[in-house]
């Protein structure tokens, strides 16, 4: 219907965005009526996302016509902001941000590089940037989940960890089982989404490819490729980040620094 009134892509886009925003506002008003006040938050999130995505779209217009090095820089910037977001989960651990950045570069970056080299990702910015951003996003989510779980496991098992230390165990041995638990937790959403691919959801990339005119069969297979890469890059990122943070929760004299909150209260009396 809208395309009849707005023949060119730009005005059509604005009209479609306006309709989506109107639905969102309507829904927020409805929530207000049933005394759930998310109006301000939804409004801010909506405006933010719109500005961000339009800005990215505009940058992409410039970047996609630029040299391939530019793509690398864009991805690097994305990795930095992903690291800042994921490291929020372990605020009280010094150097966590750097550790997460390093693990996303190694996990997501190396997979994108490898896949581009092999030819699974085409050697052009139109492929590298969107697929790369998906890998970085996956890495970020896996790191955040893994680190959050690791923090919770360590704080819940302070006694056990210190018992092992007091018996002469290296910090690594005292905490390895929590690294494993954290890593497994970080992988659950990836494995579930791989398992349910096509049945529960048709991911954005496949939908986009079909909308852009690719054959649904190829779009589907390519989506599998992307999901498989996502699992590997998320896994590598999460594992590296948790292992790096594992070292940082101990002092140089092998003392556990990340204590449970009530523990701190007891000892500071």
């Amino acid at each position: 219907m809208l395309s009849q009134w707005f023949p060119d892509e730009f005005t059509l886009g604005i009209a479609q965005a306006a309709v989506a925003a109107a639905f969102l506002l309507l829904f927020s008003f409805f929530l207000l009526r049933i005394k759930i006040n998310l109006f301000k938050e939804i409004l801010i999130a909506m405006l933010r996302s719109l500005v961000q995505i339009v800005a990215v779209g505009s940058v992409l217009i410039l970047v996609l016509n630029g040299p391939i090095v530019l793509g690398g820089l864009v991805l690097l910037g994305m990795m930095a902001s992903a690291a800042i977001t994921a490291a929020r989960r372990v605020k009280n651990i010094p150097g966590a941000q750097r550790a997460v950045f390093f693990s996303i570069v190694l996990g997501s970056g190396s997979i994108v590089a490898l896949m581009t080299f092999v030819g699974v990702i085409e050697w052009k910015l139109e492929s590298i940037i969107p697929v790369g951003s998906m890998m970085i996003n996956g890495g970020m989510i896996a790191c955040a989940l893994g680190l959050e779980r690791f923090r919770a496991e360590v704080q819940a098992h302070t006694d056990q960890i210190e018992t092992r230390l007091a018996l002469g165990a290296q910090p690594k041995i005292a905490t390895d089982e929590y690294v494993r638990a954290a890593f497994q937790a970080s992988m659950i959403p990836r494995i579930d989404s791989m398992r349910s691919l096509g049945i529960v959801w048709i991911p954005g990339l496949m939908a986009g490819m079909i909308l852009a005119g690719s054959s649904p069969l190829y779009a589907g297979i390519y989506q599998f490729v992307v999901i498989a890469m996502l699992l590997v890059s998320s896994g590598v990122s999460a594992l590296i980040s948790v292992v790096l943070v594992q070292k940082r929760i101990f002092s140089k004299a092998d003392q556990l620094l990340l204590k449970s909150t009530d523990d701190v209260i007891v000892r500071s009396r």
Partner: protein
Amino acid sequence: MPGRNLKVKSMQPVVELRAVNRKVNGYSILKDISFELFVGEVLAVIGPSGSGKTSLLRVINRLDEPTSGEIIFQGEDYREISPVELRQRAGLVMQKAILLPGSVADNIRFGPAQRGISLTDQEINQLLKQVDLEGFRDREISNLSGGEAQRICLARALANQPQVLLLDEPTSALDEDSRAGVEALMAEVIREQKIPCVWVTHQLSQAARMATRVLVLDKGKLVKVGKVDEVLNAQSMVS
């Protein structure tokens, strides 16, 4: 007894604290603590809760770091010893009996395994015999009473062949019978193996039964250290 004390005094202390302080978030938890511990001694540490008794043991085991001061372990600054080795040599038994997942034997094996030593079943049986728990080797830790768990913790610390034992109210969670059992057992271990011992307790009567010397802590400060009867008489007159 007096003869032994004289002999002991002429020897090097096993552990010596020199003006040890520990502060956390601006709070002084230990203030200027100095004392020596000799072979064959049992030093009871008493004081109200929050006086720094547990912190003192944690600092000696180096689970916590002193803010200032020195700790000399058998003539050596303890910062020169790797934390892993130091903790094997200064065996800590915590107030809560925390057992590691698995069987009783897994727990006993844990410490020596960290140094690449694997205990034989016979050695484990021997350790369990010391704590009066023969036949418990293959029990799962979920099937133990509080007293049994605490004694396993003791056997687990002894398996490391420590040169000093740090006991943090090891009988506080036990009923009267188990308490008497653990005390008798410790008295035997200390007598046989001559392991010096820092024994944190809140019971003056236990200090009187077990210790050769008593150290009184209050708000992180060393109030008094001396022979059992001198300190405890003064203490009971105050309280």
